[in-house]
């Protein structure tokens, strides 16, 4: 008994480390898609500002919105903008508002695994919607084969895969499908989780990538970086100008540029199916959610300092991690909006 007691006391005394004096700790929560980017940024910023620790954890966009509304974290992050109800809930709870700051761009690609087909397939919006609605069931259907003359598509059943977990990637994908297909809009709708007419659910981008990789004749949608790093083929998508564009960082930035002219002041905008010849149609911003008022002046200055850094030097780190940088117009607009954080 005594032995147990001494060991426990020893562990208890050892475990809590002395609190480092003078360190400011800020916590943030939210989207998983930009996690690698944010962790790189916060680490770099910490190197430049050793007394500041910004701790970001990816518990999901919805989780980020919830936690920042509850006040358990200092800022949030989300792949989909907060809707009006959520903004109102935040306002009601805190007495002041919350702002959206786009950070980087992502692209969602249709990836597939068809034995014998190495070429990059061309997908029209109608084809993608029809596949995911379950109306087109075979790979050699005219809707798919039409733009892909010269590719030998088999007459096999398409195994559709989608995300099982609620996710910003699903939000972007379904948002795009809503814009290009009325039937999708009326039957399924857009959101982080939807009632999929057909298909298997994979957990996370990794899950969908893995399922597609291992299941012949399958199709799925994943963030660009997952398709690239796993070496699986992904197709080109026809944009609103009629050009088939293969997803790339430049294409995503072009989409944001195209949308920048119409961008609302609060940056809550969807840039899927954006205008522009080089725009990739299934692109999206991801946002930081920052309160307009901070009770702690040190935290406020730290956050503002970080966002300013992110808009300038931070953007230089994006391409190395396969994220698309913000277009100049958006950056300029955000710099102005930063003044609203008090």
């Amino acid at each position: 008994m005594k032995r147990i007691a001494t060991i426990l006391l020893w562990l208890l005394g050892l475990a809590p480390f002395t609190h480092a004096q003078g360190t400011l700790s800020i916590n943030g929560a939210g989207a998983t898609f930009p996690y690698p980017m944010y962790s790189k940024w916060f680490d770099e910023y910490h190197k430049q500002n050793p007394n500041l620790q910004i701790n970001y954890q990816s518990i999901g966009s919805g989780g980020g919105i919830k936690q920042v509304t509850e006040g358990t974290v200092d800022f949030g992050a989300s792949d989909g903008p907060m809707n009006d109800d959520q903004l109102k809930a935040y306002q009601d709870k805190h007495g002041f508002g919350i702002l959206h700051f786009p950070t980087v761009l992502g692209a969602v690609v249709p990836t597939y695994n068809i034995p014998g087909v190495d070429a990059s397939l061309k997908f029209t919006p109608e084809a993608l919607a029809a596949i995911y609605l379950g109306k087109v069931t075979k790979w050699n259907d005219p809707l798919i084969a039409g733009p892909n003359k010269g590719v030998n598509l088999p007459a096999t059943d398409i195994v559709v895969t989608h995300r099982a977990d609620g996710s910003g990637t699903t939000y972007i994908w379904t948002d795009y499908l809503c814009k290009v297909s009325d039937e999708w809009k009326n039957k399924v709708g857009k959101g982080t989780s939807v009632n999929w007419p057909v298909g298997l659910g994979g957990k996370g981008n990794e899950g969908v990538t893995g399922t597609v990789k291992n299941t012949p004749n399958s199709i799925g949608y994943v963030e660009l970086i997952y398709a690239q790093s796993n070496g699986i083929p992904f197709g080109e998508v026809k944009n609103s100008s009629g050009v088939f564009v293969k997803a790339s960082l430049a294409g995503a930035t072009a989409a944001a540029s195209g949308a920048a002219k119409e961008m609302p002041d609060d940056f809550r905008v969807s840039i899927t199916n954006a205008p522009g010849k080089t725009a990739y149609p299934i692109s999206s911003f991801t946002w930081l959610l920052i309160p307009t008022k901070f009770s702690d002046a040190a935290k406020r200055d730290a956050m503002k300092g970080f966002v300013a850094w992110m808009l300038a030097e931070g953007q230089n780190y994006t391409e190395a991690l396969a994220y698309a940088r913000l277009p100049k117009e958006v950056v300029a607009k955000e710099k102005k909006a930063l003044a609203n954080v008090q």
Partner: protein
Amino acid sequence: MNARLRWRKFVSGLMLTATGVCALVAVSVLFFILGYLVFHGGTSVSWNFFTKLPAPVGETGGGMANAIVGSAKLLLIATLFGVPIGFFGAVYLAEFSGSAMAFVVRYAADLLNGVPSIVIGIFAYGLVVLPFKHFSTLAGGFALGLMMIPITLRSTEEFLRAVPNSLREGSMALGASKWRAIAGVIVPAAYRGILTAVLLAVARVAGETAPLLFTAFGNRFWSHGWSEPTASLPVVIFTYAISPYEDWHRQAWAAGLVLLVLILVVNIVARTVLARGFTVSRS
């Protein structure tokens, strides 16, 4: 030897060999998992792994020191919270209670055991995180402790019950009061089983991710004290495993390996340091 006896002997040999095969299968699975982890993550386990903080993507030399310490802290709180409740509750069930109360408590423990870990996390979130408006190691330990209670309770009760009545009668005959008999004779007799129960419970919660997401949250940096968010091995494994980077995948496997080895070490240390001189196993 007549035919019937030969047949019975044959069946006996066959079935007992079959049990050996079962044991072999169970153990092989474990060694296979260990081997797989070593193969995929072994290269990432280095001195840095145990001493450095995580590095951002693309940089080498990072480690999981904060996650290892965080997991240790969480398990400590969980054990301090969950084991006494499970243990003393089991003592009550085995030694004092009537059958009605015992039935209710066992039922409740089984229900608690079946709760998905994410629901436990949500429950702990509502109880410990929301009122204080921040994530903490304490909240994470609380959630894990909740999960330890049913395993500790049910297993300990079984092992206490398995102590033969002769020991109870013997202490009675020597004039010991009930609690002295329990503390001095019955519990020590079931000691090894109780230790197994506790270690099983610790192992169970050591690898849980979901309850920690909303309680201990996670931390890229060191966590000080008990009321800050903390990193933990399972959460880091989860975060790295769902990323698109091969380097992070390797680190996830390495973290899984380290976690397993750490539990192994805890098992060894507990059994040797805390072992009694005698075991009442085969009576």
